[in-house]
């Protein structure tokens, strides 16, 4: 926090914040409120709207399809914490150490999947998982591990894991780049004054870099939760939520209700539900992390 002397007058702050806030409130907050209003109605689009108060919500709480979808989102979030954020941290540590060759090449290649749109990634992995022509089965068979082949996207028991892998794969580079950017903010002096020098530089990374990244880590966790609660395109393309509803995620459930079944009121309620649950998850993660910062 900056000192009081530095602080500009309230008017100045307001002036700087106003344009951004205005645009943002108009495009995001107002529609959100409209959505909230829709959720109080039985509404199929068009002119007919029947006010039903909180009925949509009381139905939502009992809706097993919704909670199953939430469970699926939690699976993705859990796997992503380890696979995206965790792995990105490890790679960041490797990047700092002196042992890794071709750093620039690795960093650029790992970031490439981030650049490709989610729909393309979903589509690519659908082909990779294909029973007859997929690259995965081809690879397993050629190293003699053919017995490990299972119906990757057809078995409801592990379809969520299969579907999480492309999501993890795509965004490791995203977190890697964020961590790398933050690492540069760490003053060189800190490294110089520390006497630690481990086997491959990993010790230095663990004891110095990671604690200093804690702010960025918090943001990374938040982005991970937020992004994976909203996840849509990958799964839509790979399984469409199937088989049955075993890989349905919440945002697709909201989409189906609004756009396929024309239940706009209920679809809006689901969206508000997603918002509330996401907020709850993020606040919980903040508490668990230790709220020692002066703001949150």
């Amino acid at each position, binding site marked *: 926090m900056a000192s009081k002397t*530095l602080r500009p007058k309230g008017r100045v702050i307001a002036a700087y914040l106003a344009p951004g806030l205005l645009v943002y409130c108009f495009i995001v907050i107002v529609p959100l409120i409209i959505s909230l209003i829709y959720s109080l109605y039985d509404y199929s689009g068009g002119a007919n709207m029947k006010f039903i108060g909180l009925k949509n919500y009381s139905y939502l709480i009992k809706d097993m399809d919704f909670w199953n979808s939430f469970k699926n989102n939690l699976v993705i979030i859990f796997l992503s914490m380890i696979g995206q954020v965790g792995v990105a941290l490890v790679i960041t540590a490797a990047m700092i150490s002196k042992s890794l060759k071709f750093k620039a090449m690795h960093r650029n290649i790992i970031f490439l999947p981030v650049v490709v749109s989610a729909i393309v990634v979903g589509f690519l992995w659908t082909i990779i998982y294909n029973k007859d022509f997929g690259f995965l089965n081809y690879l397993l068979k050629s190293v003699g591990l053919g017995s490990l082949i299972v119906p990757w996207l057809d078995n409801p028991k592990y379809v969520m894991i299969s579907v999480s892998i492309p999501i993890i794969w795509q965004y490791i580079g995203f977190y890697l780049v964020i961590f790398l950017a933050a690492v540069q903010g760490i003053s060189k002096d800190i490294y110089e004054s520390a006497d630690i020098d481990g086997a491959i530089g990993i010790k230095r990374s663990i004891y110095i870099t990671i604690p200093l990244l804690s702010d960025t880590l918090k943001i990374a966790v938040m982005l991970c939760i937020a992004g994976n609660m909203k996840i849509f395109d990958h799964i839509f393309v790979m399984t469409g939520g199937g088989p049955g509803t075993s890989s349905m995620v919440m945002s697709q459930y909201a989409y189906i209700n609004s756009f396929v079944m024309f239940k706009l009121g209920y679809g809006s309620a689901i969206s508000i539900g997603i918002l509330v649950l996401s907020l709850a998850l993020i606040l919980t993660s903040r508490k668990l992390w230790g709220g020692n910062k002066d703001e949150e």
Partner: protein
Amino acid sequence: MKNNILKKILQLILNILMLAFSITCIFPLVWMLYSSLKTKQEFALNIISLPKVLHFDNYLAAIKVGKMHLFFGNSIFNSVVSVVFIIVIGFVVAYFLSRYKFKGRNLIYVLFLFGMLVPIHSLLIPIFIQFKVVGLLDQRYTLLLPYVAFGLPMAIFLFESFIKSTPVEIEEAAYLDGGSTGTIIFRIIFPICRPVLSTTLILSFLNSWNEFPFALILLRKQSLKTIPIGLSNFNGQYTVNYPQLMAAMVIAVLPVIVLYLLFSKRIIEGMTAGSVKG
């Protein structure tokens, strides 16, 4: 001595693992590239094999029939302009959020958080109706509004965490030297944020470039549509011409890769500087 050998082995393992990982990252894209050079029949018969002859007509078809040249310009316009606004506005908001306490600060923080948490499809219809009522549909600047608005939260949070870790002394010194708020923000803090700036720039550009739902719903004129919409036109009601679709995807992905490679140099500069004794 044993230490040395162990060290070398570990280093080797590290490098091999990373190499393997990088290969898995790049292979699907390589596959997409060479698949785009096949004919529809060739692809239908064997998805993995390399093309026997290189067919570039998929690219010609993608550009000509898919009107990619038209959509390309629109995508560039929307992405570049929205990113500029996202960075400038995001940076300013992040600066104030991270440095000062003021009334409503927490509320603003939470508001921006909301923007990150709500699935876009849920807001499609309300935004559509809103834009319709105010007359914002189907204009050159239509998409800029949601792109900037939805791009702000991530930019703000990324900038905010970075600024927080920057020592306050720098600004206090500048203030004592007689700098106004504007000077402090733009001339001093902003350049320091270069690493996170490049990152945010690329990520925001990506999001705008690949955005689909708003481009589909808020625009009617063919002359305004963007690349992701053009790509999806290769899907028929019951049929998909995969190689042609891949060619279009390659075209769509190329500019972002180029942009990334250009800007990534900035990040690498910082990286080698940061690990100095390394």
